[in-house]
């Protein structure tokens, strides 16, 4: 095991982790504010990737195509999220976790079938822009430029969310509504608007992440189910409802995975679940979660 190998695994692990963070940050935000476990979150991520492909096809401009398509796709996902929040999610705020899971899992199946109807079953391919397809050398290890974009987007989202939650009036209201929904309501703040805002914001982030994912792999059915499991591991490890927990959890999951691949490739997948199980036993509320809330 040389220094270069370790750097290589750290870099690939961090890029993977940042994609996980982009999804689990929204997941955790929805959970902490609205008390809803959105099983369909990664499906919106996948939908974002499909919309990116569609907009890219429509715009068909080699330089600006992707840059315009990703935000357009994210906004589309946000709009879909707004409709779904008003029509469906709003009705299950006070229901039990099982009932919520039932509804959001149904959404996974519905979205999957709608994708099949709209885009068909063939893989959709979004090419990487030329200027981002190069390699840079980081401490002697090759690193694709495109992943720098993924990491910076995640950093931007993390900072943006921090600013929004701690530096703005909206953020203070959001935090207040976490602690006492009734009190916030009694003060005349329209609580359902805060909820809708949080849901739409989380989905916009998921849509952005999906758009950024599109040129990394192909856009294909089933991607959502494979990543949502890892996102739940992230939430368990980092702590349900904690943003910083989502960040740290994403890094733990992806780095454990990356190093397991290098050292014990056969155990790579299992190891994540072992870590998750250990955290569940020692600290059931996760590293940054509070015992109170779970």
């Amino acid at each position: 095991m040389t220094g270069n190998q370790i750097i290589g695994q750290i870099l690939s692990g961090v890029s993977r982790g940042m994609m996980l963070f982009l999804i689990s940050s929204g997941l955790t935000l929805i959970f902490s504010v609205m008390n809803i476990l959105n099983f369909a979150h990664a499906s919106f991520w996948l939908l974002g990737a499909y919309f990116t492909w569609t907009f890219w096809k429509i715009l068909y401009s080699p330089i600006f195509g992707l840059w315009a398509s990703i935000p357009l796709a994210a906004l589309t996902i946000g709009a879909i999220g707004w409709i779904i929040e008003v029509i469906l999610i709003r009705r299950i705020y006070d229901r039990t976790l099982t009932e919520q899971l039932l509804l959001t899992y149904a959404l996974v199946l519905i979205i999957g079938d709608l994708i099949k109807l709209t885009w068909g079953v063939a893989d959709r391919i979004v090419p990487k822009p030329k200027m981002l397809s190069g390699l840079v050398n980081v401490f002697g290890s090759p690193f694709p430029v495109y992943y720098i974009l993924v990491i910076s987007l995640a950093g931007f989202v993390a900072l943006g969310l921090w600013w929004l939650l701690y530096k703005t009036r909206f953020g203070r209201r959001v935090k207040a509504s976490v602690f006492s929904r009734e009190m916030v309501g009694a003060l005349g703040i329209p609580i359902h608007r805060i909820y809708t805002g949080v849901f739409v914001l989380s989905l916009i982030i998921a849509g952005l992440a999906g758009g950024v994912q599109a040129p990394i792999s192909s856009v294909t059915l089933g991607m959502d189910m494979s990543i949502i499991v890892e996102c739940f591991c992230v939430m368990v490890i980092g702590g349900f409802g904690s943003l910083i927990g989502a960040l740290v959890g994403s890094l733990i999951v992806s780095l454990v995975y990356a190093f397991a691949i290098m050292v014990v490739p056969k155990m790579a997948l299992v190891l994540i679940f072992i870590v998750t199980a250990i955290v569940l036993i020692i600290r059931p509320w996760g590293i940054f979660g509070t015992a109170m809330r779970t």
Partner: protein
Amino acid sequence: MMHMRGLDRVLVIGLFLSLLLLPFPVKGAEPYNLGVVLEFTGTGALYSRHSYQGIELAVEEINKEGGFLGKHPIKLFSRDSQSKPDVGVREAKDLILREKVKGIIGTQSSNIALAVEEVCYEYKIIHVIANSNAEAMTVSNYSPYTYQIVPNTYMQATATAVSIAKNVKSKGWKTYDTIGSNYEYPHSTINTVVEHLKKTSPEFKLAKQYWPKLGETEFSAYVTSIIGDKPDFVYACVPGSDGFALFRQGNSYGLFKNVFYASGATFLTEMMEMKDELPRGIVTVLRAPFFANMNNPMMANLVKKYQAKFNQYPDDFVPMQYDAVYVLKQAIEKAGSIEPENVKNAMKGMTVNTTRGSLSFRKIDNMVNCPSYTGIIADDPKYPFPILRDMVVVSGEESWRPESEVLQLRDKADLSKKRRPEELKF
């Protein structure tokens, strides 16, 4: 008025009689109901769409001449297995019981083909496999009703190993890695290659084996780990969308520039559909590439008609499915009957004309001696997609499993418990 009414009556009766006559074909022979179980949805959908076109084309041609034996027009019944074995079994049974099919072709994934094989055995229906290629279907799970016209996993892996072994010698390679999706097909393919290399090039050391999960979209950590291992060679078997993600991410890390790479699961379909991002210079093995057989009139005809109808070149799967229908036609002609029992007997050890030349079934496993085509993926000015350069065609006899081993594997799998003794005598 009376007169008119009489004319009316004649007209009505005439019309009625002609209606009665209409649905009956002139020759009066029964149609041949042919069942197709393919994966129109799910993971195999990309391949199945083309497969069906190959079948349609052959059926159209044969029906123009009146059908099988010139008098049994083929009626196609196609069903979607949704890439799920239980659905495949249900659909196959339904085809047999309700549509009274006499033969089933198609099937994509091996797990579905294995399930359909059992159904065909149970109902004594002829089963020609033209896509799925797990070796088990003709070896440990052999059925006298199942005929295989695709190079199976063992043959394809052996062919690959033969061409790798040549490079080991000429390039002085020392170590290699493998990477394969974590399910049956990649495991058996990779194991065959590893076993073969152990025998032929004992000095060539297997450094590390990676088994990413099925459905993986992020291979970066695998790619960086492989780059860190610094192997001379990587053997990969990652089919479908996963394989495409691996190509993209491997490309972005410059993997294919530094390591000699062979793929056990890059079909002509991928070479055509993903031509922009597919790395050049890697080695792959194909099953029935049209460009290797253009001097065969049957292939040339297929390519011409396929292009005219679908405005593209046929992939690997089109010629094999097309062959399946024609193999059935030739067997029916030899048997002089469309009854599955007679057709099955006629097909035993039979030599057939295919788009890949004249091929013969081996009696012990009903496996046709079809070749595997290995070579380096490279662009060619003649085609809008890359084809194989430095092609090595490894014949069926060179690559299939020796008969003694086939029998050993059957003993090990206790095949005699599933099949009658007379069915296992050759």
